[in-house]
């Protein structure tokens, strides 16, 4: 049972539109429910604010865009035809003020002559200030819905799947193919964007093998499931990528609806397929005539769908305008439902055939007839003016159904790299040769006869050849001839209904010299709305071809890009939001730091202690106190996050010589050295220390933030550049932890704990602390005598506790990253990410003397480039000393505020030893400018501090404090 009588058997559902309460029936789309309630004015158009209604019944709907839902679930620009009504649904019209009925923006319609195609490009001419004024109005007037402000409360999932066969579209072709494959034992997935299976069977009363179409479709879906196939409804295959990967967005809740127990609103499937059958159907084409956008002007097949599937009759007096037989089916459907068909306007000169004859017996049928204008009353259609065999004739009507031909949905076929062929009969692009495992079926392949479609699909699915018995009261469908676009049309004949592009706009673009379809598209914005031109691109192409005097395929075609329909950003993000946006890496000693009252600093994925403020202390006061504690007594800092690699084997030194730009191969056992690494272009990208633990065993440390990059780089050098070396590289970052002990009392603290003599500066040795074997590296970053103590991760807690207790006993304690930063600035040590910014050579950073002259390391060739070899004009590392108060980090170095920047302050810190502020900076020709006075100027913060340039070393220039 279909039609209005069946409608009443479905349960009642309540919803609101623009605040008014309405009743719908379960299974209605929002569009069907609005039409059932006589709501024909649904939206205002994008540019001219013209009243718009519902034109289509599927995802191609260009006009009826609404906002659905409230709060974080608000979904703007939702097609009313693509929302299934649920109890409590709230929908709102868009782009209208103060109301949909009385929209002041409609004045744009009167001003249309002033805002033709590409008008905003024209506003770019003239002074930029003027554009700033235009922009405000353009942005305000041109509009779609507003995005939600609150976070989305619902979940979005990602899921991977594999199948032998993916079938897109559960119309008759897709069902037959999927059924044949599933029953032949293949792993099958069938995805359908609608909430029901059946496709065209939902609007046309055919029988297949003696069964009515809709029950046949539902039984087929059931059999696919029983054979182990997966059938997803409300699931849109929105992209076809390389390697037969298809992304499918499945809606588990309707727009604005609270999801069920899974708490998931949508699921993004990434389906890797053996084969893909595209049974994506076809989209009907509108006709071009003045006022073809009025509420009440609809696509013919959509009208049939509303009548038969939803039992909603969108008008009482209907005119059908058609270019082929399919329009007659709509006339019969409307008549069945009790509407009056006042005219069938057939564009063909001599329509003939059984269906036409049967229609002539029941309705006034006019040959060589086409609509040329519409008349409205209030905001809806009241009449149609037609040209009938050269004469004008008017009809009173509240519904105009347009059947202008069919456009096969070839999007996925094209995304998969397939080519298109041109079909002259239907004036349509149909799928041509494929590149991947895709094949198109049914209407998507330009087919029209159902029995043949089913037989072809069955075989494509893997079934043995068979016939399907199809009975169609209207007889077998004929290929859909496309409507011809008249050469000259009065009034606004819309082509792109969503972006308000008319035939006149296309003609104007042509006259202004836009010849290529890609230029035409961008200039007029045709096909660039959220519907991506599903109902408009073919008409525009036809018009362009007319103007060029070529056939449509010669006029060109724009690209079909994913996604096929608008996709919620949340579906792409999936679960990677909020706390799950990235992993959190916690230190082994996290609890120990927390017990000391640490405040945290995110450092990559790590959280490291920034400082340990005492009650009443600001973070700045705490870090300065901690730094002074290190200078005067002793401090302990967690350096476990440093990148650490063990490089071992007979050729370990040879590998390090290739990676490091300094001399490392001749390092004696038990000794270490500072080193840095270059990219191939000769610029420094990381630094660290290298230690020879044994003859064939080295330890390399480098920066925390560059740890993953360094692991990749070592792997590249070892495997790609030097595969013949006998060496292994093991990343120890997560195996070992380390604490650095620094300060004048560090030696005493360490010796007391180990009972051994502390290693000399840049020496290392193995010893034990708290019963744990440790490796002690005597390296100083702070400028004080210092030791890095390495222990296995699972033993670090005991080692840290022993070191901390001993340090506290010696008048010291823990210090954080800020204090470490203050200390290293005073010593002029560079840090990756601040001074090492990927733009400096070793010489720029004052490290030129350490570069191995013989070369033989990554980047040595790059260093020979004249632009790097000549220091003149380059940015050099310098020290800056504030002459007045705190120094703003990141500030530009200028001669005077507003001048051209000559460099910038990379790091700023208060002096640890003494008062005032100092910093490091990169300054053009800085090495020869010590003693100059410049300004550290930050326009964004409104700060301007005079500074004196000097060497990047503020403390203990001889390095006496860390040597013994």
């Amino acid at each position, binding site marked *: 049972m279909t039609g209005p009588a069946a409608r009443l058997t479905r349960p009642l559902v309540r919803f609101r539109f623009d605040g008014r309460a309405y009743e719908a029936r379960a299974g209605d789309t929002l569009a069907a429910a609005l039409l059932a309630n006589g709501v024909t004015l649904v939206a205002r158009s994008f540019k001219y604010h013209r009243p718009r209604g519902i034109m289509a019944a599927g995802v191609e709907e260009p006009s009826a865009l609404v906002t659905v839902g409230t709060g974080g679930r608000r979904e703007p620009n939702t097609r009313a035809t693509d929302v299934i009504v649920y109890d409590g649904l709230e929908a709102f019209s868009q782009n209208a003020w103060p109301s949909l009925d009385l929209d002041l923006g409609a004045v744009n319609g009167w001003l249309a002559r002033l805002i033709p195609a590409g008008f905003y490009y024209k506003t770019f001419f003239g002074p930029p200030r003027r554009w700033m004024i235009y922009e405000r109005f353009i942005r305000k007037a041109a509009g779609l819905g507003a995005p939600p402000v609150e976070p989305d409360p619902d979940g979005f999932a990602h899921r991977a799947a594999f199948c032998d066969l993916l079938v897109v579209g559960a119309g008759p072709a897709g069902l037959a193919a999927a059924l044949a494959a599933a029953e032949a034992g293949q792993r099958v997935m069938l995805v359908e964007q609608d909430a029901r299976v059946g496709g065209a069977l939902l609007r046309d009363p055919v029988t297949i093998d003696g069964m009515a179409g809709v029950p046949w479709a539902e039984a087929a879906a059931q059999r696919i499931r029983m054979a182990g196939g997966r059938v997803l409804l409300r699931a849109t295959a929105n992209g076809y990528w390389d390697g*037969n990967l298809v992304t499918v967005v499945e809606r588990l809740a309707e727009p604005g609806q609270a999801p069920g127990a899974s708490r998931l609103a949508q699921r993004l499937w990434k389906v890797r397929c053996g084969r893909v059958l595209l049974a994506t159907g076809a989209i009907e084409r509108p006709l071009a005539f003045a006022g073809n956008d009025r509420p009440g002007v609809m696509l013919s097949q959509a009208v049939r769908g509303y009548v038969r599937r939803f039992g909603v009759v969108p008008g009482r007096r209907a005119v059908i305008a058609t270019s082929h037989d399919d329009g007659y089916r709509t006339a019969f459907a409307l008549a069945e439902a009790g509407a009056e068909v006042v005219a069938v306007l057939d564009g063909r000169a001599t329509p003939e055939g059984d269906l036409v004859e049967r229609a002539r017996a029941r309705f006034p049928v006019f040959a060589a007839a086409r609509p040329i204008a519409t008349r409205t009353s209030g905001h809806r259609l009241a009449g149609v003016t037609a040209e009938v065999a050269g004469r004008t004739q008017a009809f009173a009507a509240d519904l105009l159904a347009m059947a202008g031909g069919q456009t096969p949905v070839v999007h996925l076929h094209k995304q998969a790299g397939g080519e298109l062929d041109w079909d002259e009969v239907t004036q349509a692009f149909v799928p041509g040769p494929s590149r991947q495992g895709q094949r198109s079926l049914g209407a998507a392949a330009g087919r029209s006869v159902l029995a043949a479609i089913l037989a072809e699909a069955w075989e494509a699915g893997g079934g043995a050849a068979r016939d399907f018995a199809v009975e169609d009261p209207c007889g077998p469908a004929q290929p859909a001839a496309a409507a011809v676009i008249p050469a000259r049309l009065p009034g606004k004949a819309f082509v792109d209904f969503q972006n308000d592009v008319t035939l006149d706009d296309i003609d104007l673009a042509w006259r202004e010299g836009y010849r290529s379809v890609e230029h035409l598209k961008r200039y007029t914005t045709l096909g660039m709305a959220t519907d991506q031109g599903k109902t408009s691109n073919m008409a525009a192409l036809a018009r362009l071809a007319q103007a060029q005097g070529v056939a449509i395929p010669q006029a060109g075609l724009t690209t079909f890009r994913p996604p096929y329909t608008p996709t919620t950003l949340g579906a792409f993000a999936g679960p990677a939001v909020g706390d799950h946006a990235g992993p959190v890496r916690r230190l082994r000693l996290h609890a120990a730091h927390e017990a000391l009252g640490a405040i945290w600093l995110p450092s990559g994925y790590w959280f490291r202690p920034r400082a340990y403020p005492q009650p009443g202390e600001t973070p700045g006061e705490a870090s300065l106190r901690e730094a002074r504690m290190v200078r005067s007594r002793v401090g302990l800092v967690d350096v476990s996050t440093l990148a650490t690699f063990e490089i071992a084997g007979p050729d370990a030194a040879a590998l390090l010589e*290739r990676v490091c730009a300094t001399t490392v191969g001749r390092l004696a056992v038990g000794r270490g050295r500072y080193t840095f690494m270059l990219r191939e272009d000769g610029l420094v990208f990381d630094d660290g220390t290298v230690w020879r633990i044994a003859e064939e065993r080295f330890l390399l440390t480098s920066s925390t933030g560059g740890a993953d990059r360094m692991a990749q780089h070592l792997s590249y050098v070892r495997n790609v550049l030097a595969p*013949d070396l006998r060496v292994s590289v093991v990343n120890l970052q997560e195996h070992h932890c380390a604490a650095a002990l620094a300060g004048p009392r560090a030696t005493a603290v360490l010796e007391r704990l180990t009972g051994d003599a502390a290693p000399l500066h840049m020496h290392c040795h193995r010893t034990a602390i708290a019963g744990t074997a440790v490796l002690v590296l005597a390296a100083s970053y702070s400028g004080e005598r210092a030791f890095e103590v390495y222990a296995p991760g699972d033993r670090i807690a005991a080692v840290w506790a022993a070191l901390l207790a001993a340090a506290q006993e010696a008048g010291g304690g823990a210090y954080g990253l800020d204090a470490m930063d203050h200390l290293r600035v005073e010593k002029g040590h560079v840090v990756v990410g601040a001074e090492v910014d990927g733009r400096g050579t070793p010489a720029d950073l004052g490290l030129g003397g350490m570069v191995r002259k013989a070369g033989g390391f990554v980047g040595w060739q*790059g260093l020979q480039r004249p632009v790097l070899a000549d220091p003149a004009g380059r940015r050099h590392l310098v020290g800056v000393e504030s002459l007045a108060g705190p120094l703003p980090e990141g500030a530009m170095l200028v001669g005077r505020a507003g001048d051209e920047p000559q460099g910038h302050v990379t790091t700023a810190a208060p002096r640890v030893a003494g008062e005032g502020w100092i910093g490091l900076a990169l300054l053009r020709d800085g090495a020869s400018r010590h003693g100059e006075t410049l300004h550290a100027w930050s326009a964004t913060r409104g700060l301007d501090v005079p500074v004196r340039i000097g060497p990047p070393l503020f403390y203990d220039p001889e390095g006496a404090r860390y040597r013994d």
Partner: protein
Amino acid sequence: MLLIDCPHCGPRAQEEFGYDRTLDSLVRIEDAPDAAMAALYARANPRGEDDEIWRHTFGCRGWMVLRRDRVSHAILSVRPLGPEALP
């Protein structure tokens, strides 16, 4: 998204891999400066087939050379790089 036939792990999704560079932009440490800079900055970049160095970063971490058609995205061959690929 490409399906890459890792020589060690079999066919895996592209997102497990990292692209590094074209084979012709490989700079060997013993290359002369001019040759090295030409490899870095004056690459052939052909329309069509080329050799590319990839790494199965989120898998076996092995390196490989893909012979790939940049127009059709077809992967024509995959061969391993590194010590295990030495004769």
